[in-house]
């Protein structure tokens, strides 16, 4: 596609439920990031995929968070047993090789009630 696509755009879920967020990067982009942004805050790194290398999961805040990427295409971020503090915008970004500028999706706004 022409850009990075994220779905859903908005998600409201009950505390304790699992959610899955999806990111479709630009075709051919080997590098993919997930970030979390709380209201009025900066971007908090979650996980980084680069080609076929093992992902850098050092930013995942707890074992309730996990992410997968199929080859160099779609990535899913899963949050299990959601908590209210998980409420945030989750942003995905991709880049051709990892050293250039990144293209961001519009994000998924997650609200845990």
């Amino acid at each position, binding site marked *: 596609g022409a850009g*990075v696509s994220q779905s859903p755009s908005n998600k409201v879920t009950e505390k304790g439920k699992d959610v899955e967020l999806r990111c479709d990067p630009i075709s051919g982009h080997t590098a993919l*990031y997930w*970030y979390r*942004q709380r*209201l009025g*805050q*900066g*971007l908090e*790194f979650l996980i*980084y995929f*680069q080609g076929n290398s093992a992902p*850098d999961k050092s930013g995942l805040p707890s074992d309730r968070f996990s992410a997968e990427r199929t080859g160099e295409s779609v990535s899913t971020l899963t949050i299990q047993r959601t908590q209210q503090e998980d409420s945030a*915008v989750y*942003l995905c*970004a991709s880049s051709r090789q*990892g*050293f*250039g*500028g*990144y*293209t*961001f*999706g*519009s*994000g998924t706004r997650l609200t845990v009630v």
Partner: protein
Amino acid sequence: SQQGEEDPQALSIQEGENATMNCSYKTSINNLQWYRQNSGRGLVHLILIRSNEREKHSGRLRVTLDTSKKSSSLLITASRAADTASYFCATVASYNAGNMLTFGGGTRLMVKP
């Protein structure tokens, strides 16, 4: 913790004035990038400056990089109300540090008409 720290956190100017935002970082970098964010959703890549460059221009944007001071500045000349947004710097670490892309906390710019 964040690699980049931005200053000021918030800036309010009149249309037509210049806006200067600063970013400091801690580790060796491959390049530094500036992004713009409207309404808390997807970020838009503005400009990238490599570690061996000192200054770069793009339209009304001017970016400087001082690797000895580990700092960068973004200057927006002849600002417009439409420039109102949050601006983030992001650093790509040197290759031997895993080329991690790390964001600062951002500067919220308001341009008053």
